[in-house]
């Protein structure tokens, strides 16, 4: 038993934090759902990360990665998120690449992995459809066999960053007659091809984060099939040996909490005392810190299990439910703490903490919905984790 990082891991953290400290402030705090200029800067950071080898920190050495331990990956994510550094590549390095390493052909790996590793390409993920959300396996987008091509028609929704992506990996139904999990295939395509149309979806915080992607008889070469035909559900669901601890959530929350503590100590209320002297405020700050420590503990546990080759099924779902709720709670409290100022948008005259609390309060509404709703996660904990019978 050891509840601390190794000296080597701490050294890595120190090196990373030093690099972050030296990074130009212009790069910090950028949202990838922000302006085109923010996005361009994010890509610059991505290439810096590629140069440092950190973009593929978690890739096996044979694929040009660092083969870093699970805990180093955790540290990397934790510090990057805590310091609001953009540039990590969720879809390419963390989702598609590992999938190709397991299920891809040699040609696919050769073609797609190097640009991802260099930070030269942006992928997006086409899973959800308008009628297939939590019940993803009911997806209906059709791919019809046309010799050496599939012809794909239908639409994908909630496609983050599609408007900035060069490529998309997506699931289609190749056998409409098979049971729903068994007629799905996993395909790759460029986005800039005939028949693909991308429509923006603006979220309630006013950001262009999502898109709906329409496919109208898009021709996808069969060489772009990953894994076997009709086995796409299992390709997508492969349990990958990459960090999925959910450490992002407590890191993001700790950052917000630290900002709020500093704010509460520095800002005087109408009584003339700092807000941090208000008993309710103190209580809520303490409760949030307990929540952060709780969530971080489970995230570390997930990583520790993964590091030992165990499959953290219920623990990963616990980390997700705890983490998403935490990130919501901390920003909701943040808006509370700012009182009347809490409702001012980023950029508004007189906004406090640059309106970040409000922006995140709105943005995090989706956290308990996307990537498996809290309800689905609790089902998983109960059935897969505790062995309760399915309903």
């Amino acid at each position, binding site marked *: 038993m050891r509840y601390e990082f190794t000296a080597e891991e701490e050294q890595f953290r120190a090196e990373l934090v030093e690099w972050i400290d030296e990074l130009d402030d212009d790069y910090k705090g950028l949202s990838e759902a922000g302006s085109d200029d923010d996005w361009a800067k994010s890509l610059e950071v991505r290439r810096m990360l590629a140069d440092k080898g950190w973009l593929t920190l978690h890739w096996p050495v044979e694929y040009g990665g660092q083969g870093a331990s699970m805990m180093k990956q955790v540290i990397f994510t934790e510090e990057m998120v805590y310091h609001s550094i953009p540039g990590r590549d969720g879809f390419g390095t963390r989702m598609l690449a590992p999938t190709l390493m397991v299920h891809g052909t040699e040609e696919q790996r050769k073609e797609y992995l190097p640009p991802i590793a260099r930070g030269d390409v942006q992928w997006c993920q086409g899973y*959800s459809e308008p*009628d*297939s*959300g*939590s*019940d993803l396996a*009911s997806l209906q987008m059709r791919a019809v066999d046309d010799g050496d091509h599939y012809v794909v028609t239908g639409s994908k*929704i*909630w496609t983050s960053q599609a408007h900035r992506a060069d490529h998309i990996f997506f699931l289609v139904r190749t056998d409409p007659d098979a049971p729903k999990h068994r007629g799905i295939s996993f395909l790759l395509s460029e986005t800039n091809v005939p028949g693909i149309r991308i429509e923006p*979806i*603006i*979220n*309630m915080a*006013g950001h262009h984060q*999502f898109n709906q992607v329409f496919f109208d008889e898009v021709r996808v070469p069969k060489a772009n099939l990953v894994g076997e035909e009709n086995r796409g559900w299992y390709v997508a669901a492969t349990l990958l040996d990459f960090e999925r601890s959910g450490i992002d959530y407590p890191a993001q929350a700790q950052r917000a909490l630290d900002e709020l503590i500093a704010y509460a100590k520095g800002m*005087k*209320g*109408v*009584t003339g005392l700092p807000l941090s002297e208000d008993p*309710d405020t103190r209580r809520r700050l303490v409760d949030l810190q307990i929540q952060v420590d709780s969530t971080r503990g489970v995230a570390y546990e997930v990583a520790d299990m993964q590091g030992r080759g165990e499959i953290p099924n219920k623990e990963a779902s616990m980390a997700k439910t705890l983490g998403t709720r935490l990130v*919501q709670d901390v920003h*909701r409290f943040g*808006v*509370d703490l700012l*009182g*009347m*100022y*809490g*409702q*001012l*948008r980023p*950029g*508004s*005259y*007189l*906004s406090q903490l640059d309106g970040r609390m*409000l922006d995140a*309060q*709105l943005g995090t*509404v*989706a956290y*308990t*919905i*996307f990537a498996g*709703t*809290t*309800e689905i996660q*609790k089902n998983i904990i109960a059935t897969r984790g505790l062995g309760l019978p399915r309903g």
Partner: protein
Amino acid sequence: MDLSLTDTQQMIRNSARDFMTEHIDSDYVRKMESHETGTDKEIWKSLAEMGWTGLLVPESDGGAGMSLIEMAVLLEEMGATALPGPFFSSAVTGATAIAEFGSDKQKQEFLPRLVDGDLVTALAFLEGSAAWDPGVVQATATRSEDGWALSGAKVFVPGGAGADVFIFAARTSQDGAPEDSLTLFLVDAKQLDSSAIKSLDSISDDRFAEVDFDGVTVPPDAILGEIDQGWPALKRILDVSTAAKCAEMLGGSRKAVDMTVEYVKERSQFGRAIGTFQAVQHRTSEMATDLEVGRQLTYKAIWKIAEGKDYEHDLATAMAYMSDRFPEICYGAHQMHGAIGFTQEHDLQIYSRRAASARVMFGDANHHRKIIAEQMGL
């Protein structure tokens, strides 16, 4: 005990629903968010024609002379529609201020215009920490030759850019508790240079502004109520406004629950309506329960104010509750709606954004909990 609506109240509810159905939809609400002043003159006139701008104004002053209960019934519908514009600020806060504390001259000058939809008022109270507390006022008014010289800037003045008259709170005496040293003034917006008004970009449609009153001089008869007695008057104005805000929040909460009930009946996943899932049923039933509680607490407080009863405890309870639960109901609605409710195109977010503002107007839940503690003798 009789918790039902009177015929008059039912009639107001019905006409309000008819009016909203005919004139206000969510496209209109969205469009108005980028309207220049926030006041759509045409709709504003229509509200006056319905008799609503003057609902709280005594018949002797040309209004309908109805009670806060009727106003609450109306506001519940406005909250459910997220009606944009200066109605609340003028017909509730402004009308109460002038009708209850105005001199005869002030009533004659302003109330008919307010009833006719020719006057938009705005409360200029908060500063600095923006606490809903007399101590927040640092602005001053000092006697000058011609009247009073004002000084100081106000924040979170609702509809600041579109107001015709500000109700301005200033210290008129530097010693003594703030409770005994504030005075209210009616300040004509024409007195202010447009550069004195800076818009704040808020999540909701309150059109807040910072308004700088430095250098403005007002005549002696601009005083609303008595010198140094501004706080008791303002407290009354804020209390009525708080109760009215609860009714508006109740309407928004009701809409969020209704939308959720509709959605979970229609949306299907795993081959069945998601409303058949017990987790969805339970969350929705909790939201509906919160709504029912909010209705009881809100109307009880409003009834007590309208009937001249001692209302402090009930009003603070209603506001503490609605301020907590309106956002919570909206969060529940979002969770039940899934991704679609998170988009700007969907109407749900209109209500969750309204909640973020309404809940802190006139003091947040903690502010009202402190009042409850006092009322409980703690």
